[in-house]
């Protein structure tokens, strides 16, 4: 009864009562199982073979087993690889750096032009104011 493709029911452990398929025969006592259970090595004594059988190759993957199980309407789960989450910290750092680099350049360009003009204007204004004041005192 124990051969590749035989559907069994697991009798022991957290997956007890669920359907499994023999994927590979490892030993006199042990087989590799998959299906509605965790894919793992299993003792033959912990399996109860049923009349059902499916066509799979030796060492078939979980996806191949899933396809065959869907035909028999046995529930299984599909393994999904986790999507890599974006790292918000690095983005924030980049934004800060950009803003920092942009700001000082603008200031450097603007400041000298602005400062030069008012300083000249102030000096002129001060000198202009002082002169008439001195003249007034003399008079």
């Amino acid at each position, binding site marked *: 009864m124990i051969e590749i493709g035989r559907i069994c029911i697991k*009798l*022991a452990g957290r997956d007890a009562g669920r359907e499994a398929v023999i994927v590979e025969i490892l030993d006199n006592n042990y087989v590799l199982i998959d299906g509605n259970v965790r894919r793992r090595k299993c003792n033959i004594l912990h399996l*109860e073979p049923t009349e059902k059988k499916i066509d799979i190759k030796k060492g078939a993957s979980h996806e191949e087993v899933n396809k065959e199980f869907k035909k028999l309407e046995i529930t299984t789960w599909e393994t999904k690889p986790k999507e890599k989450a974006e790292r918000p910290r690095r983005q924030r750092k980049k934004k800060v750096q950009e803003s920092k680099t942009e700001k000082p350049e603008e200031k450097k360009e603007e400041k000298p032009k602005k400062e030069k003009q008012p300083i000249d204007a102030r000096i002129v204004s001060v000198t202009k104011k002082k002169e008439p004041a001195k003249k007034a005192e003399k008079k």
Partner: protein
Amino acid sequence: MPRPSKKSRSLRRIHVKTPGGRTTVHYKYRKPKAAKCSCGAVLKGIVRERPYKMKKIAKTKKRPTRPYGGVLCSRCLRKMLVEKARNK
């Protein structure tokens, strides 16, 4: 003489040896009875504690993780599953 409330026989008496070499009696509440399967076998891997201690223990440490864990013994579960598989 112990306090009258400590004379109740629902309390368990524990003899404790103190650091001074004297033996004294401590009083504690008794533990609940061991959980049993319907076949009469004592269920293993189940914690026997008072409710206030059971609160602190994780669920996975209180009973086996297999289906019907803490209700049926492993032998009864195996029989049940084998019968189901063969009758189908």
